[in-house]
């Protein structure tokens, strides 16, 4: 049967169009029930009696949730307990329209066979299609469509011959909808009603989201926040230029301050500063918001106060005191930034948050505050009866809404992760918080692994160059099991040198498009945490088949150069190959061989050859203006054997480190040139944009305080001036400057060559760059391998590889995963630092001031590579008198002592476990001695301030 659908639509240019679309109604859409005899469904989804037991409905039944139930109670629907659910097409379409994340989740649930979710295409079913009536709103029509479908099910199922036929239950929170449904004979319940009636599942009730229907109890009388404008007004405002749209980033250090990044034309972004709860107006980190700018007179400089929302009580108290602290007229007009306020939320980007419960002081209370691990997220009020068991545990909570009358958003409990402070739980938390996929590989993924025992076949040999005779060796850090690169070098007859870089041929094992490939593409990178590695590809590949271990035959992708003795490339050749590594060395072992003049075997000779070439390559690179920012700073180093933080190691850089690095850079650049030559539209490259000049302000100011000039007009100038910037009797100064310079840099990113025109890699001073050398731990390299393989006719191409939009989407994911992996690594290091200090007790160390803030100084302790904050203000007591000078920058305390950047101080370090969620490294000032501020040398003063860890 044919129906036509007519509707009117407004075009982008403002004209009104009448759109006519066909709409076919069908007779062959089945109900999806196992027991149904009428429908000829081949694989029915809905079971007869695997239903949930409920007090309200003692008979077997299936659920039909309406759109709002799906949107708000997705956590409940995702529970393994809830099965046999009919999702109507109308509902699915509405959900798709209104919330992409929920749509994704409900689709995942539908795909999960265990869940037995059935999608009923009611809009195209002859008997359940409804037409919009005159004067009926789209929402009302959809509600009616849902009721009609439910009614159809009720009648359809009652035709079944057996007497214990299942029934359908409509779940809706809309009172009018429920009444109307009951009138036409459909069993319907409110969601809470139904969930509470479930037998033996009290914990599900906690996950119920608080919907607007029952919020009345929470609301105080006072409205704390201005109203959000409706979307239509926001859109009109954005169009007229009254409002600006941007993404909301909360400030980590100060809960009353946030920045909104507004995408301007091209790649230009402007930042708008928001200060104070009223102006933040219930926006949460990463929401897309509309802001209104304040007039210029109200523009301020970002405050350098560090503020944490530490109030214990749940009262919606005024924040005047805290806000006053921020009101500090700054005379310097150059520092002023545009300010504004949030007028409305365009899109919420709420996800489930990890964190811990602050139990309410009232014993029997069911309402508690939840503190997320991420400081940028406000505390969330949840309702639970299990507060006492949840105390001391890491839990996950989702936000449901933020009414105008409430100081905090309302949310609900999702699940518990385990006791806080456990290594496993904390690792789980940091993986979840950084969105690192860390589940074990699924069976489908593992099924694409090669069958063991694996050997190199004749066919492999036919298409590959046999390089087994070459004297190849690998150099890696100790304990490395995923060796993805190996090198060789020997002298040719004409006096030139042949140098080869051999990279594990991962793309041979991971074929495009299969589950293994998709999983790797999603993970994007291997994440190295302290004592734990989250692999991108299953271990069989990462540590065995792809790892170029010594004395086994392995498949490789080789990049071979002929070079003259000045390290100039004469020609480059790429080939798939078979190699047999002669030795897997550590950096130290390789260095020993080079230095030991008594050793003259082939491996050592080739290492020496490589070493001389690498030095030449490096000096040439530095001449071109490559930055050495991988500053030799001391990093917190884990003992990889015991997985316990027993020692802090200085990361020593040997010649061999840079040997391997130089050749990897060279290989990456050569490959980048080749794939860009072949595929100018879809080559996956990596760029490092030059930072905007303003980024360097802090560096220039810092150097000025020591009467030094840093030139930042080009990478070369920066590199040179950094080299010259040294102080006598302050050898660490240069390192400190380099650390500051590193913070000025932009993030290097992957991109698709067809989508961008700027390819330059600032840090390496290379016009083109990509990642080729670590396919075991980076997905980008796998793609580059595939491109290169196609370019040399060693492999066939596939559609997605040549599609620049898909490539660009992939790049976005890879960039995101890399960033998150980096954050996760830092957090893991921070956690293990804490474990270390827990064992060590209290230490006194020397450090340098890295930044000066309005009420605190941030100190770097070179010995541990540890950064911490010393606060000079106390919440309960009046603090010492502080005078802040933003030009220096310097901070004067009680007119007695002035702190400048780079000053040497002595601090006392200990672990503060008073807040188990945010265990902190506490630093207190020892020297210079300032009465009332610094602590006496031997013992620790209990109220010393809470510092912040490096993030």
């Amino acid at each position, binding site marked *: 049967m*044919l129906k*036509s659908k007519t509707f009117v639509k407004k075009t982008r240019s403002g*004209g009104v*169009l*009448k*759109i*006519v*679309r*066909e*709409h*076919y*109604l*069908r007779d062959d859409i089945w109900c999806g029930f196992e027991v149904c005899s009428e429908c000829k469904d081949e694989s029915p989804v809905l079971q007869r009696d695997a239903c949930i037991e409920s007090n309200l409905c003692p008979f077997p039944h299936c659920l039909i949730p309406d759109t709002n139930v799906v949107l708000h109670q997705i956590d409940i629907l995702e529970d393994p307990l809830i099965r046999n659910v009919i999702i109507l*097409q109308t509902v699915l379409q509405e959900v*798709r*329209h209104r919330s*992409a994340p929920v749509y994704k989740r409900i*689709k995942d649930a*539908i*795909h999960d066979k265990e869940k037995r979710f059935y*999608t009923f*295409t009611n*809009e*195209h079913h002859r008997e359940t299609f409804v037409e919009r009536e005159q004067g009926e709103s789209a929402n009302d029509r959809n509600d009616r469509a849902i009721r009609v479908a439910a009614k159809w099910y009720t009648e359809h199922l009652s035709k079944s011959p057996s007497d214990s036929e299942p029934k359908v239950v409509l779940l809706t929170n809309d009172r009018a909808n429920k009444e109307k449904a009951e009138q036409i004979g459909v069993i319907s319940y409110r969601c809470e009603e139904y969930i509470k009636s479930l037998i033996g599942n009290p914990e599900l009730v906690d996950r119920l989201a608080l919907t607007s229907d029952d919020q009345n109890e929470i609301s105080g009388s006072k409205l704390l926040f201005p109203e959000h404008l409706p979307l239509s007004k926001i859109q009109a405002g954005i169009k007229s230029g009254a409002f600006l749209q941007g993404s909301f980033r909360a400030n980590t250090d100060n809960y009353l301050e946030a920045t909104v990044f507004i995408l301007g034309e091209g790649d230009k972004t402007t930042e708008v500063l928001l200060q104070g709860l009223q102006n933040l107006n219930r926006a949460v980190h990463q929401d897309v918001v509309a802001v209104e700018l304040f007039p210029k007179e109200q523009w301020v400089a970002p405050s350098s106060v560090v503020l944490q929302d530490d109030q214990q009580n749940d009262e919606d108290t005024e924040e005047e005191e805290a806000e006053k602290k921020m009101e500090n007229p700054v005379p310097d007009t150059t520092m002023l930034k545009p300010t504004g306020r949030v007028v409305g939320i365009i899109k919420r980007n709420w996800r489930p948050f990890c964190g811990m419960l602050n139990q309410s002081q009232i014993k029997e209370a069911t309402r508690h505050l939840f503190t997320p691990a991420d400081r940028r997220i406000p505390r969330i009020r949840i309702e639970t009866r299990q507060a006492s068991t949840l105390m001391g545990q890491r839990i996950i909570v989702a936000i449901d809404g933020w009414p105008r009358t409430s100081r905090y958003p309302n949310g609900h409990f999702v699940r518990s992760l385990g006791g806080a402070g456990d290594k496993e739980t904390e690792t789980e938390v940091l993986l979840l918080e950084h969105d690192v996929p860390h589940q074990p590989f699924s069976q489908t993924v593992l099924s694409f692994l090669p069958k063991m025992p694996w050997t190199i076949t004749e066919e492999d040999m036919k298409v590959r160059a046999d390089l087994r005779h070459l004297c190849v060796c690998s150099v890696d850090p100790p304990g490395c099991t995923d060796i993805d690169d190996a090198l060789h070098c020997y002298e040719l007859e004409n006096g030139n040198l042949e140098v080869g870089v051999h990279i594990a041929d991962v793309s041979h094992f991971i074929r495009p498009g299969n589950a293994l490939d998709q999983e790797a593409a999603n993970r994007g990178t291997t994440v190295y945490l302290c004592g734990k590695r989250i692999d991108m590809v299953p271990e069989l590949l990462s540590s065995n088949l792809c790892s170029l271990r010594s004395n086994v035959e392995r498949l490789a992708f080789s990049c071979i150069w002929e070079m003259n003795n000045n390290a100039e490339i004469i020609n480059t050749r790429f080939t798939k190959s078979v190699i047999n590594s002669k030795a897997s060395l550590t950096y130290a072992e390789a260095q020993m061989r080079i230095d030991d003049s008594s050793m003259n075997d082939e491996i050592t000779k080739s290492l020496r050859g490589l070493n001389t070439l690498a030095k030449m390559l490096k000096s040439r690179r530095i001449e071109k203006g490559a930055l050495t920012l991988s500053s030799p700073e001391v990093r917190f180093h884990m003992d990889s054997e015991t997985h316990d933080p027993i020692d802090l190691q200085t990361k020593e850089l040997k010649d061999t480190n840079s040997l391997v690095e130089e050749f990897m850079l060279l290989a990456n650049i050569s490959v980048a040139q080749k794939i860009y030559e072949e595929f100018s539209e879809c080559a996956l490259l990596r760029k490092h944009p030059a930072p905007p000049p303003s980024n360097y302000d802090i560096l220039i100011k810092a150097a000025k305080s020591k009467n030094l000039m840093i030139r930042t007009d080009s990478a070369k100038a920066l590199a040179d001036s950094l080299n010259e910037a040294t102080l006598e009797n302050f050898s660490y100064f240069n390192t400190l400057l380099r650390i500051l310079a590193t913070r000025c840099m932009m993030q290097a990113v992957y991109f698709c060559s067809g989508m961008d025109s700027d390819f330059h890699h600032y840090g390496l001073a290379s016009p083109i760059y990509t990642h080729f050398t670590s396919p075991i731990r980076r997905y980008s390299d796998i793609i580059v391998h595939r491109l290169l393989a196609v370019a040399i006719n060693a492999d066939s*191409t*596939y*559609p997605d590889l*040549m*599609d620049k939009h898909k490539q660009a989407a992939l790049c976005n994911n890879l960039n995101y995963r890399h960033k998150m992996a980096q954050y996760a690594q830092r957090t893991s290091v921070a956690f293990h630092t804490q474990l270390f200090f827990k064992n060590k007790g209290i230490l006194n160390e020397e450090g340098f001031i890295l930044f000066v803030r309005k009420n605190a100084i941030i100190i770097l302790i070179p010995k541990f590579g540890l950064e911490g904050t010393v606060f000079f203000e106390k919440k309960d007591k009046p603090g010492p008198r502080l005078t802040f000078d933003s030009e220096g920058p310097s901070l004067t305390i009680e007119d007695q002592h002035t702190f400048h950047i780079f000053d040497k101080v002595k601090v006392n370090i200990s672990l503060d476990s008073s807040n188990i969620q945010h265990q902190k490294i506490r630093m207190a000032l020892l020297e210079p001695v300032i009465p009332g501020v610094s602590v006496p040398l031997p013992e620790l003063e209990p109220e010393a301030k809470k510092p912040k860890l490096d993030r």
Partner: protein
Amino acid sequence: MAGLELLSDQGYRLDGRKATELRKLQARMGVFGQADGSAYLEQGNTKALAVVYGPHEVRGSRSKSLHDRAVINCQYSMATFSTAERKRRPHGDRKSSEMSLHLKQTFEAAVLTQLYPRSQIDIYVKILQSDGGNYSACVNAATLALVDAGIPMRDYVCACTAGFVEDTPLADLCHAEESGGGTTLSLALLPRRENIALVQMDARLHQDHLPALMEAATVACKGLSKVLDSVVRQHLQEVSVQTRE
């Protein structure tokens, strides 16, 4: 907000069809008296009118005539009211000229032109309403009009579009599907021997996907040929009943 979901997980398209299903096809032959042959055809919401004159003497310059076969002259136009926004120029623009040329090529392959040396056959097609697959609707309508005019052809010429969405080939695209990105392939087929009269694809498609897409278009064309055949037979029946009286 996300764009349109062209193919749902349950395998239904925007308008409720499955991937291989065609739109409803309705046609009538002999709609005009004056012309030698005419037909009106609806393929879903795409409506086309085709009129055939000839074979007759070559009009205009003699130099155009061919000594061994007939000249086929095609003209394609779109009614000003055929699209959602009123069209300014109904024919003669670049797109229409291209379409005219394609139609000419298609029918030169199908009509037995060598039977009419030094003559001309005119085919005029007009799109009355456009909802995707304009070319195929024109070809199908013109085929019926040629049959109505009694001009011998090798076989019916059936045309259909096919598109590629989420690795699934879709047959007979509507306008929303055509403009939803992805590749569209138009195929004109002589179904009995699977001779291709014309195949056209504008956007890029990976080579690996081409066979699947061609297969889908071929199957769709064959399905169409059955419908066209039944239209012709029914028309014949009606006409023969009328003439008997």
